[in-house]
Each structure stands twice: as C-alpha cells, then as structure tokens.
C-alpha cells in the first residue's frame, strides 16, 4: 500500500479546472517531485491534499484512509505536514514558539491545568521545549531559537517552516518551493537536509520546486503537471528529456521553426 495515493482528483474554481483527473502514488520513504510551469496546479494539489480545498471528484488515500474533504487540522494530526510557497510563519513569535505551536500531541494538558500550572502541565511544557530545540538543531536554527521569527532572513524562515512541520511528527512532509529565495549554497544544504529527513527520520517527502538543481538531485520520482493535468511521471533522467515536459516548459516547436532550422 502506498503512503499517499491520489485517484482521479478534480478541483474546479468556477470556470477554472485547476486540477483535472490527477492520479499518483507516493511510496513510503520516497522523495517525490511535483513540477510544472507556473499555474500548473501544483500548489492547488498541496491544498487539496492538506484539506485547505475539498476536491470535486476523486479520492485521496493517506495510509489507506480517504482524507479528501477532512479539515486541515485533522489531516495534520493524521501525519501530513506542509510548508507554504509564500512563507506563513508566525512572525511576532519566537523561532522556538513557532515550532512549539505544532506540538499539540506532546502537550495534552488542558486549559485548566495551564491556568493552574500543574505538574502535568510543566512536564509537557518541558518535553515540548526539548523536542523543539532538537528539531531546530536538525535544521541548523538552534542559535536563533529566541529570535523573533519575522526578523530572520528568507532562507532561515523557510527552514523554520520545515522544523515547525516536523514538530507534528508527520509521516508525510509536503514542501512547497523550499529553495525559493535561497542562494546556491543554501540550496545545497537544503538537499542534504531533505535527504537527512528521509534517511534519519524515515519521512516521505513530496517536493514542489522550480529550482531544477534541487529537484533533479534529490527526487527519485518526478510527476509533471501542466494546466492541471498529468503530462509525465518518471525518474529525473527520463523527465529531463521527455518531449511533453520540454514542450510545457519551453513551448512547442512549430513546423515553421523546424523548417527554418
């Protein structure tokens, strides 16, 4: 059984068919790339998987259970974490607090015990703080734990979003353009970090990315969409030379152009 399986998923906004009949499967432990030109429907697919949108048709099976149409908070709790294309960190909170927000499963103490500061509350709070710092360590943000998140440089904010997602102890991590705004050095580090997440933490990763160095380096399977439809799926080497992918990114070669060449 695949960890995640989309079957004939449709998402329609008024007259716009943003996702049309997309199916793919992601095996446990995979690093799966999702690429396509701007407006192809990649982020819409992420939003459908994470419950921000409900698909009109189709099924989204996570660990064999159909999660299409469930509330985002519930899907997150089931083990699907994500980052956002246009960074959505909690800007006025500290880096450590940002990560701790996602730790509900470690912090079961009730509101009453928070107000009374019971022993159970403080034990949970300590466990949560400890875990947050472990995750910040993994993403290389440990020194910034006390900083206000909004003041971090762009690349660090992106890594903070990953750390925050990891706090959910997810099975599946969806990364929406994690390398955007990163320099080539940061992007290389990101490659290593993504591999680390899979190899050491046993995560399955789906990556939406425009930086082809990152995609081709780190992904084992790449799924290509254009205008909401699947146009190809395969290993990086196949995708690089796939005629429909090239056409989608670079435009069709017209007979005229061929003739003049």
């Amino acid at each position: 059984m695949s960890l995640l399986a989309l079957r004939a998923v449709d998402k329609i906004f008024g007259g716009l068919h943003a996702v049309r009949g997309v199916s793919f499967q992601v095996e446990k432990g995979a690093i799966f790339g999702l690429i396509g030109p701007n407006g192809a429907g990649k982020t819409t697919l992420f939003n459908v998987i994470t419950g921000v949108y409900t698909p009109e048709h189709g099924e989204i099976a996570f660990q064999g259970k159909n999660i299409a149409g469930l509330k985002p908070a519930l899907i997150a709790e089931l083990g699907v974490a994500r980052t956002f294309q246009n960074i959505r960190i909690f800007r006025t909170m500290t880096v450590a607090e940002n990560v701790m927000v996602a730790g509900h499963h470690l912090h079961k103490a009730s509101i009453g015990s928070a107000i009374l500061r019971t022993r159970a509350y403080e034990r949970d709070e300590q466990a949560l703080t400890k875990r947050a710092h472990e995750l910040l360590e993994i993403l290389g943000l440990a020194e910034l734990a006390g900083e206000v998140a909004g003041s971090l440089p762009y690349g660090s904010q992106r890594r903070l979003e990953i750390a925050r997602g990891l706090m959910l102890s997810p099975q599946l991590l969806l990364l929406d353009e994690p390398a955007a705004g990163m320099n080539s050095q940061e992007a290389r580090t990101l490659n290593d970090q993504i591999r680390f997440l899979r190899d050491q933490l046993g995560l399955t990763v789906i990556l939406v990315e425009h930086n082809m160095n990152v995609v081709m380096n780190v992904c084992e399977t790449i799924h290509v969409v254009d205008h909401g439809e699947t146009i190809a799926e395969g290993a990086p080497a196949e995708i690089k030379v796939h005629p429909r992918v090239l056409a989608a990114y670079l435009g069709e070669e017209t007979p005229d152009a061929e003739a003049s060449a």
Partner: protein
Amino acid sequence: MRAAVRVAIAGAVLLAIYALRLGVEAAFTEYVQRIILLAGINVILAVGLNLINGTTGQFSIGHAGFMAVGAYGAAFVGVKLAGPVHGALGSGAFSDAIVFNLALLAGALFAGVSGLIVGMPSLRLRGDYLAVVTLGFGEIIRILFNNAAFLGSATGYFGDDPSGLPAYTNFFWVFAWVSAVVVGIHNLTFSQTGRSLTAIREDEIAAEAMATPSTRLKVTAFAISAATAGIAGGLFAHMQAGVRPEDFRFEKSIDMIVMIIVGGLGSISGAILGGIFVAVSLELMRDLQQYRLVLYALLLIVIMIVRPQGLLGTRELHHLLRRKKTAQPATPTESA
C-alpha cells in the same frame, strides 16, 4: 508541598490586599476610593478583552453586553441567594462573602455561556464577523434588559430590598479578583493554548495546517473573555444600589477598546495600565461627559499615528525589566 506553597502565597497575597484595604480606606476619601475600585474593575475588563482582541486577534466591539449579563446575573443571583445562605449560616461578613462570590461566579457563568452562544456561529468564519455580531449583541442585550420587567426594565434592577443591592464590593474583593484574573489570564496566555491563540492571530491557515483546532480555541478564548467581563460586571453591580441598562451602552465597549489599545494590544501589562488610564481620565473628563468620546477618538488617532502598537506593544513589563537586568553585568564595576 507545591500545593502548600501556592496556598501560602495566595494567602499572603490576600492578607496583603486586606492590609492595603485598611490603609486605603483610612487614607483616601470615598471619592478617591471609588476611582480606585473602578480602576480595578477596568483592569479585569481590559485583561479579559485583551485575550480575545489582542492575543487571538478576533475583534469584539460589544463586550459591554457580557459585562451587563454578568452584572444583572450576579445581582439577581445575589439577591435570591442571600435569604437561604443567611438562613443557614446566619448573617455576617462570612455569609455575605459566600453570597457575593457565588453571585460573581454565577454572573461569570452567564456571561461565559452567552459568549459561547455568540462565538460559536461567528467564530467559525475568518474575518471581521465577530465585530459585527458582538456590536449587535451588545445592543440587543441592553434592549432586552431595558424591557425585562422582572429585572426592573429601564429603571434598572435594585433587588427586593428598598435600599437597593447590598454594597458587597470593596477594595479587598475587587483586588482579590483582579489578582485571580490577571494571574489566570497570564498563565493561559503563556502556555501552549496561548501560543496557539497567537498563532491563529498571526496566520490562521498556517495554524490549522499545524493541527491547531482554531474554531474550538477561538470560541474557548472568547467565552473566557466574556466570563471575565461578567466578573467585572458583578463587581460593578455591587458598587452601587442597582444595575441600569444605560450603564452598558456602546460607549462602555468603546472605553474597553481604548483601554487595550492605549496599553498595547496583546500585552497584559498594557491592558492593566490602560484600565487604570481610562478610570482616571474618565474622572478628569467628568465635566465634559458627552464630549469624552470625541476626546477618546482624538486620542486613538494620535496613538495610531505616534505609537500604533500602544504603550507596550505586545511586550510585557516584566520582559522589559528582565532585559534590563541581563544587560547590567556589562557595566565596568560589575565585571571588575
């Protein structure tokens, strides 16, 4: 052990408030004492409102409605409880204290439940729906009390006794409740729940993607905020002979918003300062009663231009003090 220490601390605080009360009552005229009591009640209002408007970022502009529910609820329950409790325990300061605090808790409960009823439909949605709904709620509640014959309609509720409601409210009870509310809201704000509420304010979509049950938390915070306004209402009701619908007009909700904006939305210490500021400034402006809203509007505009984050921003006084303390060892005498 831990519990014993806490009970001891709570006892010491109450003793200190009691000693302060004796001092205040000896040192100040009744006029000044009344302003001090109003300041305490304002602090409860402001700290409670700040939880929803400041920390959670969901704007309520009808909190006077919840204060009214608490005031009427506490006054009514107090009047009805006084007979049986005095019958069982005899009359005296002790049974008065029991009646009064049960009445305050009843007022808080009524206000909290109205908060749930108002919050559940309006907080499911993102956006400014809460502001619109609370604005309407504040007016509807006032009109309901204006027409409720068993609560005295427009003349107000004065209890069954011709001399009016018993004047239970004094320095001790006001500041005992101020301490309880400030400590409770502070602990809630600086907890996992508080972090989640702040996360909802900062970015609700991201908070939900991080498994935060946003609707449930918003409704809970709103109900707690309404309940604290209810406690303030109960204390306010027992400061005077009766509760009147016109005590809870829209202006009262605006006063509360001024409190939290002056002090800094999202800061508990700011709310405390704001509550005191409004109590004192209302007294100073007593002669220009009907122009006071104009002055408050001017003040809000000036604050928005000069210091949009309010006096303290989202920071707390003790954070500023701590920062100063950590900076101190850098002085030459200390390092030598």
